[in-house]
């Protein structure tokens, strides 16, 4: 049967098996409402049950890794925006830190904490989209609108910090392009104050709802050993009960200064993934609060980039009035700063899992080779194994709870 499916399944409409059952081939995607983004699943269906699935990727493959080989380092940041576009700042920061690791730039604590604030905000934005979309896919649209107000507010904070909302291109190699404005601080504090109530409201709507629990518990469950074999990371692995978090296992950006809990699930089903993300949002709020407290204790309120000037643009007045500053500006913008030969791997705990950057530099103005370790790419490989034997409705919920984002999947 499987043989038949794989060889000629485009040509045939209804496939018969040896047991004289009639199977039906259903194209879920690329423009199906459940595939948020563009990906396709060709499902062999026995009525409502999925017998076999074949996933197609690459609908929005934009060859980012190849494009990156022709771009100076700072111009690769906008490419990373478009990986997981629900949490662009995380990708941006990860990329900056990778380059800093290659160049050996040391950032001050203040820069680290500012980054942590932005990264945790992005994590909240990503998780809240994933969780509210689980609600939408199970038919409860209202919770989605509750949380989306908060996401809107996070985007306003991004706007205050870097000027853009979705694809942020936030920060520079070595720190930020400018200091956080007072308005940004006010908004961050306001967000910390108001968000827990919104989150609780949303949780009350779904987490103990009988229908929602029936729809999600034991749906798309994945055992920890299979998850590890596939290379799962992030909330999807933690839902299986493995407490792996890059922020703790391999701290970067001064995460070691912070005190937070890694929530884990039990059997890696949709409900566990939902609850893990829900708890992670609360922990992220906790981290942001700690970062604010720590920043208050740092007397220096002005440093927002590393002391290394190689990648930080000089201030505009100096560029216009000072020849050396103009030269530096020109060199940075043209990508003519010296890059050492070497290769680095740096990974961060992105919203969806371990986002890694493998960077090989041959000393030229562009990377010789750049590879993104994209967690969604790994999750999507396990998707057929997770949904086979389940019903179509389960497949939809499994997909949305894994938070597979097409931009990150296809790069």
């Amino acid at each position: 049967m499987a043989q038949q499916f794989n060889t000629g399944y485009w040509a045939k409409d209804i496939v018969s098996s040896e047991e004289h059952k009639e199977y039906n081939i259903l194209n879920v995607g690329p423009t199906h409402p459940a595939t948020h983004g563009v990906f396709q699943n060709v499902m062999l269906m026995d009525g409502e049950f999925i017998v076999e699935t074949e996933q197609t990727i690459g609908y929005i493959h934009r060859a980012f890794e190849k494009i990156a080989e022709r771009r100076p380092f700072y111009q690769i940041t906008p490419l990373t925006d478009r990986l997981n576009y629900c949490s662009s700042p995380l990708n941006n920061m990860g990329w900056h830190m990778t380059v800093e690791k290659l160049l050996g730039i040391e950032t001050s604590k203040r820069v680290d904490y500012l980054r942590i604030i932005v990264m945790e905000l992005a994590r909240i934005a990503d998780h809240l989209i994933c969780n509210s979309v689980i609600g939408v896919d199970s038919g409860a649209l209202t919770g989605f609108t509750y949380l989306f107000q908060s996401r809107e507010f996070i985007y306003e904070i991004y706007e205050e910090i870097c000027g853009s909302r979705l694809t942020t291109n936030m920060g520079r190699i070595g720190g930020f392009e400018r200091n956080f404005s007072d308005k940004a601080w006010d908004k961050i504090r306001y967000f910390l104050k108001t968000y827990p109530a919104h989150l609780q409201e949303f949780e009350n709507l779904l987490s103990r709802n009988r229908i929602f629990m029936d729809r999600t518990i034991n749906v798309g469950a994945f055992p920890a050993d299979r998850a590890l074999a596939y290379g799962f990371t992030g909330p999807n692995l933690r839902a299986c009960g493995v407490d792996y978090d890059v922020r703790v296992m391999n701290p970067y950006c001064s995460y070691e200064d912070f005190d937070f809990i890694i929530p884990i699930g039990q059997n890696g089903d949709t409900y566990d993934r939902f609850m893990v993300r829900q708890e992670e949002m609360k922990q992220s709020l906790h981290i942001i609060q700690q970062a604010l407290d720590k920043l208050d204790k740092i007397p220096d309120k002005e440093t927002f980039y590393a002391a290394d000037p190689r990648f930080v643009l000089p201030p505009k007045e100096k560029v216009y009035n000072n020849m050396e500053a103009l030269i530096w500006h020109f060199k940075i913008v043209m990508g003519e700063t010296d890059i050492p030969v070497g290769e680095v791997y740096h990974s961060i705990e992105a919203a969806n899992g371990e986002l890694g950057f493998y960077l090989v530099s041959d000393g030229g103005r562009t990377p010789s080779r750049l590879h993104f370790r994209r967690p969604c790419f790994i999750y999507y490989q396990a998707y057929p194994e997770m949904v086979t034997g389940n019903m179509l409705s389960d497949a939809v919920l499994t997909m949305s709870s894994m938070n597979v984002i097409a931009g990150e999947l296809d790069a």
Partner: protein
Amino acid sequence: MDWTLYIYKTIFLFIIFLITLVIAMYSTYGERKVAAFMQDRRGPNRAGLFGLLQPIADGLKMFMKEEIIPLTANRALFILGPSIAMTTAMLTGVVIPWGGTLTIGGREFSMQIADLNIGILYVFAMVSIGVYGIMIGGWASNNKYALLGSIRAASQMISYEIAMGMTIVALILSTGTLSLHEIVEHQHGIHWNIFYQPLGFLIFIVCAFAETNRAPFDLPECETELIGGYHTEYSSMKLGFYLFAEYINMFISSAVIATLYFGGFNMPFIDQLGLSPNLLTLLGSAFFFLKIFGLIFLFMWIRWTLPRFRYDQLMNLGWKKLMPLAIFNILATGAYYYFTEFN
């Protein structure tokens, strides 16, 4: 039977059809406003004052849209589907007693188009035929999603009809009649059936949600799995017919629930008011519509609060939970009357 009766019935028929259509139209507006209210939004507010012209604008849009019939579709059945859905939805209203009796110039005018002595069975028959509209439409589209949707719809409606019928049996046991008008008369004042048949009411309302394909039983058209379900391939006013039929069904089911369990046009303290009978009749009708609107609001409230079931859970609920409960309800009602009335 004289000619005034025929004229009166014809006019009244048109009035009821008109009311049904207008309420169904404004239910779409109401639904959007209720959804907006629940989701911290504003809802339609551009067309006319408070967006009151929105349903008309929507209807106009539906008529102006291009009519697409897929090449692979079965043309005749494709057109038949929405027609059946719409017609049966409209026909149910004729047996519902919209009010008491008006006495004008010595003549009595009943505010019910047809007082069938098997009114309940008629309602059931119409609802059952309504399934064909969805099945035929989904099958004729020649689209797998539409087919899945119509299969879901058919099995869902058929299985929930059984539990629904069982609750009606218990109701008939307690009222002793199949005529809707007599059932209403039986609940005079505040002796509403909901107080005598609370379990039956709960089962009935759950089944009514399933019969009208409303959330949390909106599997046949759940947009995240089946795109549009049975109406995936429909466009223009044919799609409008399906959507409209859903709202009419919601209105009619609310009316049936109000008739069977909330005393229809009865209102509490009706005897103490001391008003003229005609005025009381009109007041009763107004009260009946108030009940209907309350129930429609309940429909909307639930839609915007709950997630939807999965297909197998829906079947489990229907066959393994509601049906045994309904049978228990019949037995309990029967036992009650056996021990109280006959001894």
